[in-house]
């Protein structure tokens, strides 16, 4: 919409109507309310001189009256002291005086609750408050919201509300919000370009101006933040008159103590911080070009980080002039893109710390070698004793190229996951393997990942300093000796070693199954996954070993899963098609899911009971001896339950897909840094795309639910790859 039109409308409106401010007090910010009232008093003086209607400040929820606020403070202090006494004196003994203190604590907590009840805030409270204000024919032109902002939710001691909900509620009161053109968003990251476009303007379509913070907000009682609020309210009219972003920035710089906070203001398309004066459109455009340049040059970083291609075996020797250094420069200059919604996630995943360490990689490995020389020799000796191939020796790591070092780490990984029959190995061997697992983690976290485990000083030669993630007792002979004294705790216990081996094996098989999704590969992964589940269940048993009659109910359930996975592996090896439809596998899958529901915490809930019924009927259908009549009955009942539960099952399935997507995103993010396999990221990204397609399919299936596609939606035997 044309800027001139809106600004004219704003002035015409402000001349004619009585427009008020709404203060949403999420964070019990009495001082901010006081400063907003001061500002309003000054604004009203001008209105009075001009004969215009005066404005009011409506606060929701109202803060406690001073006397009650003092009482609450006193209560908090007494509770604090009481908790300290309880923690220090009543932790071990249960003296009668402790019981008295505990009952006193309960009483005070109740009292506190009754105070907090009065200032509670949520969507319902807002709705009621707005309904009341609409009855009074109130017309809000500005909204001040004070709280902590994070992941789309504003929160504070009084409660919370999502930004989307806030907008939704406001828009449901059109008379109140039709002229809402200004937002004071007093929280962290509330007025950066991403928040303005992606949050405020989206949720409040008539919005013209946003005042707030582009980074961290000031604390609720910090003088600079309070001044900023008061001054900005008083200068709001001037802000609307600014002709360009520079003028807006000049105005911002007239605010008392602006240098002490991180203010950001936007009117129409203009955007200003103390260091930036531009338009939202320009910022986006600039970012689009910077991010595309960054993407191009990031291939250089990836190449050296992964060290797979021959021309990238080692980062450049010249640290002063290189493509890596160009990448670093661009990374710093594109900082503003972190604040643009479209690029935020992508930009945040790029690490400057890691880039610095890659530029100075040669110094880093030299320092690693110098600080852990003895341990490296001991690792090599252990590898020899355990019969590892002679190619798997680390020698002097500073003389290895990054490529050679990473190859050795991969060889070490293969060597460790190739270990079988741990239970038959002597304790000393288990202690050595456990130490090698530690070493593997240590070398990945430092020389491979190049993250914050590497002390900054290692970027310079001859730094005598230990890694943040390694102390000498974690690997080398010292660790083996320590482990021998306390094998379970130090990881040489059979089940913990099996777990470590299983986890690493699973990781590798998963990558194989995604890269090359044959039935054989997928079955191998499924089996490893089931073995892990089984081992966990067994471990659960073992940890209750002293209770002779205790048996984890999940052990039996996971045994079913293991059996199914073994069956799938056999079928895959035979080269059979559609192995997941094999009746025995389906039968085992259903029994496994039935067992899981029966053992779950909410087994008694109505939903669990219905799900159980559904699965039991499906199991009946799998029975070859079922009569025609029985089959019809079971099908009918399945249809009935599914139609009753369709929304819930759909939602559960959708949530599961969203979760899988989020989890794979973590893996994708970590694989950026783990770098052990150059294709990790691409593989996971492909998988995420698949899930997104599945989510789309779910929406389509839901629409087509009535036409008998329900099985495809809900019957996934294991929730696994198959």
């Amino acid at each position, binding site marked *: 919409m044309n800027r001139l039109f809106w600004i004219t409308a704003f002035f015409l409106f402000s001349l004619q109507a009585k427009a008020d401010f709404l203060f949403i007090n999420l964070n019990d910010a009495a001082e901010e309310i006081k400063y907003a009232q001061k500002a309003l008093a000054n604004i009203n003086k001008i209105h009075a001189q001009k004969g215009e209607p005066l404005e009011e400040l409506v606060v929701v929820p109202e803060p406690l009256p001073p006397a009650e606020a003092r009482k609450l403070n006193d209560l908090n202090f007494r509770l604090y002291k009481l908790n300290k006494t309880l923690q220090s004196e009543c932790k071990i003994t249960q003296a009668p005086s402790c019981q008295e203190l505990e009952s006193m604590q309960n009483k005070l907590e109740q009292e506190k609750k009754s105070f907090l009840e009065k200032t509670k805030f949520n969507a319902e409270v807002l709705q009621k408050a707005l309904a009341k204000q609409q009855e009074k024919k109130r017309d809000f032109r500005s909204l001040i919201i004070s709280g902590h902002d*994070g*992941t*789309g*939710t504003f929160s504070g001691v009084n409660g919370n509300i*999502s930004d989307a909900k806030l907008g939704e509620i406001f828009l449901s009161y059109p008379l109140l919000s039709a002229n809402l053109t200004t937002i004071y968003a007093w929280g*962290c990251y509330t007025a950066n370009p*991403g928040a303005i476009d992606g949050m405020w303007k989206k949720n409040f379509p008539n919005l013209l101006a946003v005042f707030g913070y582009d980074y*961290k907000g000031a*604390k609720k009682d910090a003088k600079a933040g309070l001044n900023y609020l008061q001054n900005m309210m008083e200068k709001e009219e001037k802000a609307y008159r600014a002709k360009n972003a520079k003028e807006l920035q000049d105005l911002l710089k007239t605010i008392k103590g602006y240098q002490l906070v991180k203010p950001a203001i936007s009117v129409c398309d203009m955007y200003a911080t103390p*260091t930036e004066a531009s338009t939202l459109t320009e910022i986006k455009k600039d970012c689009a070009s910077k991010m595309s340049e960054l993407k191009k040059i990031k291939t250089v970083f990836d190449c050296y980080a992964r060290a797979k291609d021959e021309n990238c075996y080692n980062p450049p020797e010249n640290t002063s002039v290189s493509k890596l*250094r160009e990448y*670093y*420069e661009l990374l*710093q*200059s594109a*900082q503003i893109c972190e604040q643009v919604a479209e690029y*935020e*996630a992508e930009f*945040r*995943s790029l690490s*400057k*710390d890691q880039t*610095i360490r890659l*530029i100075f990689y040669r110094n880093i490995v030299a320092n690693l070698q110098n600080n852990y020389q003895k341990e490296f020799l001991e690792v090599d000796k252990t590898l020899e004793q355990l019969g590892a191939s002679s190619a798997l020796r680390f020698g002097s790591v500073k003389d290895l190229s990054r490529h050679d070092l990473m190859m050795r780490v991969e060889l070490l990984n293969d060597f460790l996951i190739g270990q079988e029959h741990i239970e038959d190995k002597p304790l000393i061997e288990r202690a050595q*393997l*456990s130490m090698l*697992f*530690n070493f593997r983690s240590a070398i*990945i*976290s430092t020389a491979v*990942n190049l993250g914050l485990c590497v002390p*900054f000083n290692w970027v310079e030669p001859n730094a005598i300093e230990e890694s943040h993630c390694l102390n000498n007792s974690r690997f080398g002979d010292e660790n083996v000796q320590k482990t021998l004294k306390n094998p379970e*705790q130090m*990881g*040489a216990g059979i089940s913990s*070693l099996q777990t*470590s081996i299983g*986890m*690493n094996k*699973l990781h590798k098989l*998963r990558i194989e199954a995604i890269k090359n999704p044959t039935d054989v590969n997928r079955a191998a992964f499924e089996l490893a996954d089931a073995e*892990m*589940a089984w081992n966990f269940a067994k*471990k659960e048993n073992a940890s209750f070993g002293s209770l002779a009659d205790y048996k984890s109910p999940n052990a039996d359930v996971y045994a079913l*899963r293991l059996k199914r996975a073994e069956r799938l592996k056999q079928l895959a090896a035979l080269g059979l098609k559609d192995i997941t439809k094999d009746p025995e596998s389906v039968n085992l899958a259903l029994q496994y899911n039935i067992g*899981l529901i029966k053992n779950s915490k909410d087994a008694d809930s109505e939903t669990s009971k219905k799900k159980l019924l559904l699965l039991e009927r499906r199991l009946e259908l799998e029975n070859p001896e079922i009569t025609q009549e029985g089959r019809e009955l079971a099908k009918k009942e399945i249809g009935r339950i599914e139609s009753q539960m369709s929304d819930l099952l759909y939602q559960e399935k959708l*949530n*599961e897909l969203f*979760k*899988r997507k*989020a*989890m794979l*995103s*973590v*893996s994708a*993010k*970590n694989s950026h*840094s783990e770098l052990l396999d150059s294709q990790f990221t691409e593989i996971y990204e492909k998988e995420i795309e698949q899930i997104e397609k599945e989510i789309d399919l779910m929406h389509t299936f839901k629409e087509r639910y009535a036409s008998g596609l329900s099985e495809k939606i809900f019957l996934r035997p*294991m*929730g696994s790859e198959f």
Partner: protein
Amino acid sequence: MNFFLFICLLLSSLTAAVAADTSAKVQVLQMHPKFPLEKMADEGVELHPLSDVGKNEEVITAIDRDVILNKANLIKTTANWDALEKDLLLLRAEKQEPQRAAKNYSGKISSQEITRLKKIILSYRKEKAVK
């Protein structure tokens, strides 16, 4: 939570896993601003909102770095330096003894100036950690 999901999450923390560590925290990282992270709060997983990603970086953002250099009266000295050189100066000042850090700047920046710079950086870090 089904076991497969659990494993996926566990895998995500494998980089730091040690042999005995089977209790790795299940982590969910928000990779898109619209991902409904709050819906997962009751799942017993460790949630990382997007705004957390990269927040522990040692390198200070370019905007804040220049404000710090300005406060330390080093903006002119570093005027023709590239971003990496400026960032290295801040990191050295923060992590090293002033005399050692100053050696890298052969007379251009004294150990006293490094000490003052360090103070400003530390107070910046403190302020950043507060809210």
